[in-house]
């Protein structure tokens, strides 16, 4: 009988620390499945962020490095330049990639580093307890925007994927979502392409994943998925950006 489902070899068989309804577990699994399918487990090197996914290396079963908050793409640059034969990816949240690490992100992209970036956008800082992220929506309440994000005080949600798409050295950017099984299948296809691009030496590839954070959106998991579809996707439309 054909085996159609199994635990990915690149994912350790352990419980995660993530909250109920969090998207990180799904994103981790998609990466592990793709690493297995592409046969690159013994070549891949992951760079974990600072944020909720700080111990992603406890869940993936391949070589990984930590990086200081925001510096994942600088660390990945160092690794990839020394070992171009390896497949190097970063896994970063919105605060890591688009606030404290904006400089590292833009310049790694502009140099056209041949790496893969998995960018988790959940519109909030999770690990530190629900503060405003660069991607927090207008009107969204967080601990540091108790009355909701306001343009005149906090500016607009930062669309860093669209900004990065302007750079000639950036080869592939797509925004996907985890709010339903069909969208998760599309997310997997996008992530796989971002890894395949690196294998084929095409260059800098980034997948932005809209990911639920029921805890700091203050809603039940099901409602968080609906909120992505009905609210978040209006500000961050999914699809290929470049």
């Amino acid at each position: 009988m054909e085996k159609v489902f199994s635990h990915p070899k690149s994912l350790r068989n352990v419980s995660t620390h993530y909250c109920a309804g969090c998207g990180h577990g799904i994103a981790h699994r998609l990466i592990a499945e793709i690493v297995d399918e592409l046969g690159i487990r013994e070549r891949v090197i992951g760079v974990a962020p600072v944020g909720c996914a700080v111990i992603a290396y406890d869940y993936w079963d391949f070589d990984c490095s930590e990086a200081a908050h925001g510096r994942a793409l600088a660390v990945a640059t160092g690794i990839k330049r020394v070992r171009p034969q390896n497949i190097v990816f970063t896994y970063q949240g919105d605060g890591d990639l688009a606030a404290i690490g904006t400089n590292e992100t833009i310049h790694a992209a502009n140099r056209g580093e041949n790496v893969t970036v998995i960018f988790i956008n959940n519109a909030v800082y999770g690990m530190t307890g629900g503060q405003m992220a660069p991607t927090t929506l207008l009107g969204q309440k967080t601990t540091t925007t108790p009355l909701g994000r306001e343009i005149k005080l906090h500016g607009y949600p930062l669309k860093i994927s669209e900004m990065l798409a302007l750079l000639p050295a950036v080869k592939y950017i797509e925004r996907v979502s985890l709010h339903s099984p069909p969208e998760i299948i599309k997310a997997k296809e996008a992530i796989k392409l971002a890894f395949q691009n690196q294998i084929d030496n095409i260059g800098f590839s980034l997948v932005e994943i809209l990911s639920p954070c029921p805890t700091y959106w203050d809603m039940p998991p099901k409602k968080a998925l609906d909120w992505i579809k009905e609210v978040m996707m209006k500000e961050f439309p999914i699809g290929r950006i470049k």
Partner: protein
Amino acid sequence: MSKKILMTGNEAIAEGAIQAGCRFYAGYPITPQNELPAYMAKRMPEVEGVFIQAESELGAINMVFGASAAGARAMTSSSSPGMSLKQEGISYIAGAELPAVIVNVMRGGPGLGNIWPAQSDYFQATRSGGHGDYHSIVLAPSCVQEAYELMFLAFDLADKYRTPAIILGDGMLGQMMEPIRLSAEHRTPNTEHRKKWTLTGCKGRSPNIVKSFYMVEGDLEKFNLTLQRKYKTIQQKEERFESLFLDDARIILVAYGSMARIAKSVVNNLRKKGKKVGLVRPITLWPFPQKAFTYNLSPKTYYLVIEMSYGQMLEDVKLTINGKAKVEFLGRAGGGIPTEEDIMNKIKRISV
């Protein structure tokens, strides 16, 4: 014997690094160390190494973190304000137990300060600098030849102890040209086989993780104790210093780096006149060479600490001597350099 060539300190440091097997350099422009990255930009491609002009000091030090994690001998360089920015990365490098070499060609501070030579970053280099209980090994060359030679030691010590090693020079050393002799020695750049912990892909082994994060209660304390044992070993084994006339000296000058050369001239001149003066020149600033301060310890002996700062190494000298001899100080900073005359005057006042 190879012939002598004329080089600036900055260039000699870069060439020393290349010959010591450094194959990754990332840096950001800042005066007075710009000859160093310029030299690396030319030299690295010749040895199939990597040169990156980073977007910032933060970018540079974190690229070094990655390159070191991937097994390369990696370095960065900067000058004082840039070193402040690198402290985050140095703390992570120490915490992840990665080897790396960081060069600080010191200039005047605080703030933007100026581009004149100074030794005002001694505290930053020898105390943790960044956050957490860690130390970097700190080496202080006093001439261009020594700047070149200490690069071999810096990379070897960084690898041996898996810890950051800082070359603490100053703008005078960096900019000055001197004839130096290059060694015939070229280290094998690929040291991966000795580094079982590097990230190479988990082929044929269980995955390696490079990290400084310990979330389970008690684990971080255990890790800190491991670090402390390592630092104790470094303190016991790696002290280095140069000394002159300590056997009978009654006034012992203590200076490092460029400042030590001026102090040495004074000592040699006064010895010709029969004065009982001596010199201690620490080569390792951390570990501080305590063995150098065991001579003539009596209330009649003066240790005169001379720095291009307002008294930073002075604290280590006082801690080491612990009241067993007299300690005097002469210092200028912000571009001022104590001259031979300044030192002679200070010695006269002590001797009276």
